[in-house]
């Protein structure tokens, strides 16, 4: 469930990058830097089912299941194509910030 302390951007990015390396599980991904600018489709060629696997891991790590499912289902086609790691990091940070 969610951490009592809000994680930093770098912590979320590192967690996300670790999950991505686990899901892709191919030798090249160890060599590729994963940054806020990394594109899921162009840079990582992530498939939609892998994206869902990533979402599941993030949900297990950070909680806020309902927000996550809604966010994912609400992504427009254009947003999905252009989606960068940074957008996901920022979404997680937003969910953690006090309302």
């Amino acid at each position, binding site marked *: 469930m969610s951490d009592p302390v809000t994680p930093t951007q770098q912590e979320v990015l590192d967690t996300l990058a670790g999950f991505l390396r686990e899901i*892709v599980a*191919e*030798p*090249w*991904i160890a060599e*590729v830097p994963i940054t806020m600018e990394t594109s899921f*489709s*162009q840079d*990582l*060629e992530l*498939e*939609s*089912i892998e*994206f*869902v696997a990533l979402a599941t891991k993030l949900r297990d790590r950070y909680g806020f299941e309902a927000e996550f499912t809604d966010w*994912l*289902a*609400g*992504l*427009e*086609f*254009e947003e*999905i*194509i252009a989606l960068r790691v940074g957008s996901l990091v920022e979404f997680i940070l937003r969910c953690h910030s006090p309302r």
Partner: protein
Amino acid sequence: MPRFLFVVPPLAGHVNPTVSVAKELLARGHEVAWVGHRGAIEPWLPGGANLFPVEDCGSPLLAAQRAAMARTVRGLESLRFLFDDFLLPLARMMLADVERAVEVFRPSVLVVDQQALAGRLVARRRGLAWASFATTSTLLTDPVPELPKVGEWLCQRLASLDLEAALTPTEDFGLSPHLVIVFSTEALMGAKVLPAHFHFVGPSLSDRPDPTPFPWDWFRAVPRILVTLGTVNVDRGSHYFKTALEAFQDQPLQVVLVAPPELVGPAPENVLVRVHIPQLAVLPHVNAIVCHGGHNTVCEALANGLPLVLAPIKDDQMQIARQVVGAGAGIKLRFGRFTAADLRQSAERALGDPKFRDAAKRIQASFAAAGGARRAAELLKGLA
């Protein structure tokens, strides 16, 4: 006697299935005709075929857009290009000529390729009996159910065409409510819950003799792999071809690499580089195939019971690759990322682990049992 009018897009892979099925219909004494772009279609039609040509004014532009897209677009983005820059303009361009062809030929059944959306509009407007040909099997249902807005976007694009033609939009991915003939099998696609008017007849493989020469005496008694990108993706294959060379040089196998020699450079003696091969004749002589996951190449390989290594690029290739992996007949790589070591290991597994070949042979058997063009012709006759 029933009369069948085929509505086809200017793509050879979508014309071929209509030719095999038309042959079966003609053999039963039925009349057939085609409507489409003469330049792209006529070379594939039987001599003396009745073709209603589409005014070709815009197709060089479409061809150029499609070529540009083939060079750059990848993954899901290609779905947007396919519809916005190709299929929807194509439908608008073909509409009047399909109407005219129907008025002149008076078909009992309109047979509409899923990508020739003008046929769907005309059939619905006139209340004609019509069948869909799903030449590739990836848009029968929501292509990306994990991300619902993709399917919604697709339905909206199709709805915009329906509205322009004063029709009520439907949510059927452009397919006929009467009969959908799918050129694949459930053994490859995975069992799906689909309405009863969907029928799987297996892929339509060309039976035209291919005169392309090939040095058959080059083959030696070692495992052989065919490496290809099909016909339309060659100019983005530089990384792919070079990686294949690096992966397989000095390995105890022979590789037929279908590529322009100038893109490949000097090849080691176990690699044969040819810009064209008679692919259907070569496939029975190889043990595995490395390709991009185009529906035709994949089905031709599986019809020969060959395991596959797939590096999909765009369009339906991601889903075809997912089908092959799901059926256990192959291994998927990432087109822009895979290394020589990845490719070598994947090819070794595809060749060495019998489970891949066994799965490919199961799909091969399903193709042989699916009934092909003959069954498609019977289904169409039932609709007339």
